[in-house]
């Protein structure tokens, strides 16, 4: 395990930031950490980085207790709302962080030049960070996290303030890192991006781990469909085992099928035989199909359901 956390708790006075979180993360994973502001995501990351001491519980990183120097040498971090010292230029800042990381001068110069080139910051070496745009600061923040070739990356909102092309480049970069065996933790509120990028996600609420699993599992298909016909469905139309509701202003219907209606042949593997019979019945009633789409649970649905105070939907 790259990260192993058992019953981790962190209290700030009476305020409980983390209340017994357990989590295991395997190598070469893009791991999304989701949750509302104050859910405990940043606290969890800070404990894993050794910046904050846990009140109770155990946490290890790459098989070592968190916070040891050898663990820190393997970790890259991009904090949320980071403020890079504005009196530095990109090269001087990377040189500082590289030296503190223990990289010899020649090596860190070479790495800095590579990363600046890779992140599209080449040619601006003389410009002080004061004159950087938000996106440029974000790219430089990523560069410092990658500088020493870490085996684990903790990135808080890595694409914040970056334009769409830049976001794509950063996503590709992170995928490439994963391909090399790096484990990447991403804190983000951009659920679509997390869904697109991450292998696994965990959702925290009020210091508790509500859900964890692969993105594929969490966004599995539902037993409901969006359907549109060429005209309104007459009130006389009925189909046993289906509940029909108008959605999207009446232009479409949500058809929820009871999977255990017991009619017809053996169910198909994806449970789609019910809708075939529904469409056939509608066609027999003179309705012509214009649109058919299976509904999926998005990460957003899941997230909102948990944020509303429920458990797994």
């Amino acid at each position, binding site marked *: 395990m790259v990260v192993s956390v058992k019953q981790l708790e962190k209290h*700030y006075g009476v305020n409980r930031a983390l209340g017994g979180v357990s989590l295991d993360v395997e190598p070469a994973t893009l791991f999304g950490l989701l949750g509302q502001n104050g859910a405990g995501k940043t606290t969890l990351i*800070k404990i894993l*980085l*050794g*910046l*904050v*001491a846990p009140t109770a519980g155990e946490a290890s990183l790459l098989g070592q207790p968190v916070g040891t*120097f*050898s663990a*820190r*040498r393997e*970790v890259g*971090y991009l*904090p*949320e*709302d*980071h*403020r*890079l*010292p*504005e*009196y*530095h230029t990109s090269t*001087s800042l990377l*040189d*500082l*962080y590289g*030296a*503190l*990381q*223990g*990289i*010899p001068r020649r*090596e860190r110069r070479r*790495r800095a030049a*590579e990363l600046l080139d*890779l992140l599209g910051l080449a040619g601006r070496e003389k410009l*002080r960070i004061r004159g950087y745009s938000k996106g440029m600061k974000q790219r430089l923040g990523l560069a*410092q996290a990658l500088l*020493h*070739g870490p*085996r684990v990356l903790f990135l808080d909102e890595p694409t914040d303030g970056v334009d769409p092309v830049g976001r794509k*480049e950063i996503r*590709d*970069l992170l995928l*490439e890192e994963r391909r*090399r*065996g*790096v484990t990447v933790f991403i804190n983000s509120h951009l659920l679509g991006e997390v869904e697109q990028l991450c292998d696994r996600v965990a959702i925290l609420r009020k210091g508790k781990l509500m859900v964890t699993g692969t993105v594929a599992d969490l966004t599995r298909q539902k037993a409901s469909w969006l359907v549109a016909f060429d005209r309104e469905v007459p009130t006389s139309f009925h189909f046993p085992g289906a509940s029909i509701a108008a959605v999207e202003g009446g232009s479409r219907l949500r058809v929820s099928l009871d999977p255990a209606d017991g009619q017809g042949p053996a169910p198909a593997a994806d449970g789609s035989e019910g809708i075939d019979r529904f469409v056939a019945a509608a066609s027999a009633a003179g309705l012509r199909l214009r649109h058919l789409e299976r509904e999926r649970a998005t990460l957003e649905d899941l997230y909102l359901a948990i944020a509303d105070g429920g458990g797994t939907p």
Partner: protein
Amino acid sequence: MNDPDRFPRKQADAAGRVTVRPMLPRTFAAMLRDTWREFLDAKVLYLLLLAIALLFGAALTGRIEPQPGGRQYLDIAARAMAADLDGIDIATQTMGDVAGRLNGSMYAITAAEPIAADLPEGHWKATLTRTFIPLVGVPESGEEITDRFGKIADGQLWTITEIRETGTEWARKIGSQTWEMAVAPGRDLRLLWPHRFTLFGDSIELAGTKGAPLGLEVLILQKLLATGLGGTILLLVSVAVTAAFVPNMVRKGTLELLLVRPIPRWQLLVFKYVGALLLVAGLLGILVLAVWLITGILANVWSPGVLLALPSLLVFFALLLSVSVLTGVITRSVISAMLVTVAYWAILFIAGQMNNVAVESRIREANVGKMRPTSIAESIRGRQPQRVEPLKAGRKPFYQTTIGRITEGVYAFLPHTEDLDNLVDRQLMRDFAVAGPFRALMESASFSWEKGLGLTLLHTVAYLGIACTIFSRRDP
């Protein structure tokens, strides 16, 4: 973007990478460069260098010229011959201290006129008369007079180039000798000689129309520019610039990027501190060196005593910086760090001044009814001894009043930075043979620069230690 060869270090991983260990010198050098960048970014360096250059320029328009007035220094040299003052500190020791060294003779200059010019470079013709008690004292030879005339303590005011005894045999028998002599200025005469000091041509007169002793002028100039106004302004600017260092470093979003590195937290703070200290040491070095050069060029006096101002000011700044760092760590605010540091400085200054008053009141009280000690230097300049009068009935000496007691009580716990300043003052006074009660106070046992240095360093280390402890333990 997807070039797999972009990360050679990662490939080395698989082959078994040698762990790179952070080394102390590397970390230190990196933090030093960081501090230097931050300092340069404040743009103050250029202003300070400009200010020092302007000071230099202004000072170099000055002219220091000797004034008439050599006769009095012949008189001083003659009177001083009444005792053997070899190795005696004339500024602090009184005539009473050297009573055993009096030789029973009186010497006086009865006539004097300059041979060439009435200037320290000029030579004089003078008549010296010695009066002694016949039978007790024996006549002196011209060689003996040549050997002793003009020497006061370690200084050499005059040298005799020609001497001829002119008195009659009869006068000699009743205890009176007379010599005609030609004298040349000795190496230390210039420091006592009155000089005019003007700036910007003749437009500003700094030492009165008659001038003041060159040594005193140089001392005041050095004190004003190095430890006085110049040093104070430089330290104030340094406090203002360095006050931002720690709060900037511990800002949310910046701090995490430093704390995540594989180095102990205290190193970040201590290296930043040492970096700032080295920068200010450089600035102080430039200032003190500039002052030394300015007075050297202007007055052709190259005494190195003023260079002591550098360690003295630096130790003081080390204390101020530790207060600034501690406040910065606690409050994370630039304004707080600056204000608390300046307030601390003000408290030290006021407490030091009030303590001086208390010490003076103790010395005075111990000497009530006695003759006020008059140094040899004062005596040979003709100052009359005075008795120390008791205070008016019902008035307590300052050190016995409530405020006096509080002052001495509080001062005992403060770093005695005043003594570091006194160390420089005392050295300057020694360099330039300046005497007087102020110097006597400075030389008194109440002032100990060793204690001042020790207490200051102790406070500095304590504040820094507390700052490091808080910094290491607090969650970011």
